[in-house]
């Protein structure tokens, strides 16, 4: 398939992602939207996103805030009468939006996800470092409001200054695997 995003239709690009091929079976019944705890916060509902993708509205779909409100609760996936897996679709749209450099600008979730992924790629998520870096890099006022929560967790030994580390060999192995994956490109 021609992989140039300027000529490939968005719906074809989506359908090439493992788990997303079923998107073509959508009958626009809206069950996903009705099952979503966050549909009312989305600029476009899950069903609308699919309709827009079919109409090849690449920029509008990939710059929507909608997928970033997905909580991955899988209620839509369980209920879809056509077997579309909207949760996986939302994750795929998030990645496509990053790859196409079209991420909605007024959201903190993409920053949080990127930071999370950075820590995953070195082997383990240090919760205290992750929270501190996230709040300070996005909205220090939120960090201020989080102090009582963090204090309670620290007091009970639930936020650790120590971070879990893989063995040097394990870390190198993980890095080699991820570097290779990066050289292969995406899932599609």
């Amino acid at each position, binding site marked *: 398939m021609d992989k140039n995003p300027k000529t490939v239709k968005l719906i074809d690009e989506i359908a090439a992602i493992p788990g997303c091929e079923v998107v073509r079976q959508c009958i626009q019944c809206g069950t996903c939207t009705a099952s979503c705890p966050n549909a009312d916060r989305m600029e476009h509902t899950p069903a609308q996103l699919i309709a827009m993708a079919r109409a090849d509205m690449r920029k509008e779909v990939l710059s929507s805030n909608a997928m970033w409100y997905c*909580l991955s609760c899988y209620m839509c996936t*369980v209920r879809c009468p056509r077997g579309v897996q909207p949760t996986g679709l939302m994750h795929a749209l998030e*990645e496509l939006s990053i790859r196409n450099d079209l991420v909605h600008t007024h959201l903190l979730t993409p920053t949080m996800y990127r930071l999370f992924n950075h820590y995953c790629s070195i082997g383990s*998520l240090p919760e205290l470092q992750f929270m501190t870096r996230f709040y300070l890099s*996005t909205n220090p006022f939120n960090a201020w409001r989080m102090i009582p929560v963090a204090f309670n967790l620290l007091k009970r030994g639930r936020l650790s200054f120590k*971070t879990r580390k893989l063995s040097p060999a394990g870390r190198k192995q993980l890095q080699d695997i991820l570097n290779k994956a990066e050289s292969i490109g*995406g899932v599609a």
Partner: protein
Amino acid sequence: MNSYTYFPGCSCSSEGGAKAYNWSIQAISKVLDFELRELDDWNCCGSTPSTSVDELGSYCLAARDLALAEKNGMDMVTPCSACYVIFNRTNSSLKAYPKLKAKVDKALSAGGLKYDGNVKVRHTLDILTRDIGYDAIKAKVKRPLNGLKIAPYYGCQAIRPDFGFDHPESPESLDKLITNLGGEATPFPLKTHCCGGSLIFSEETMALELTHKLLESAASNGAECIITVCPLCQTNLDAFQIRVNKKYKTNYKLPVLFFTQLMGITFGLEEKTLGLKNSVVPMDKVLAKIGQGVV
């Protein structure tokens, strides 16, 4: 004796916020006589955020752990619902999409690993209720719950999309467990609704609204505490309860226990081995009701 490969995940590791979940699982495993062998040198499963940022990378993160676990030849158990969903998703995608599997195989081989897809990944709730079983659990109860009213909270990813051990929308395993421990499972209409997950960090207002609804539903149905099966659900309901109270001018003081802590209490295990003091909302009243020493 049942033996399993054990994958604690970041939250339940000794550096993680839900270490008490891990402690309580270890403690009850000794009572119920099953063995958990922690996977050596495991890495973070990637969870949902990695899937959204770098999907192939996220499959590879999970596949490294699965490849390591395959060498042990046992089912892999995880207490974390996020890890559970990621590993099962990886298994089913690698099986269904040979092209994807070829890519993941290639990446794994750069690390000297291979994965043939033979590791069955299971949730702690699944092995306790189906492998060990309610009868064996009930037989170990020394301090029954005296009719303590408990809201059974399943959350999302332990039961959805559906990896087979309970119903994705009307699960019953926790309800039955509570009854077998001598407690009363309260009606809890929101028992499979979302707590806000990791968006508690980036979209706090939204997540607090969801958490508030859960607390309201549990309290209005008479629950004296909530039990959970997921580290993140526990944190949102327990540590962020003060944020809910502040925002909604409420005064909830609902203890939120891991279901394995509750089991440990009924088995007569010491408070310290179960990490009961790790919870933010104190559970004195719960313990007093079942005649356990007040912490």
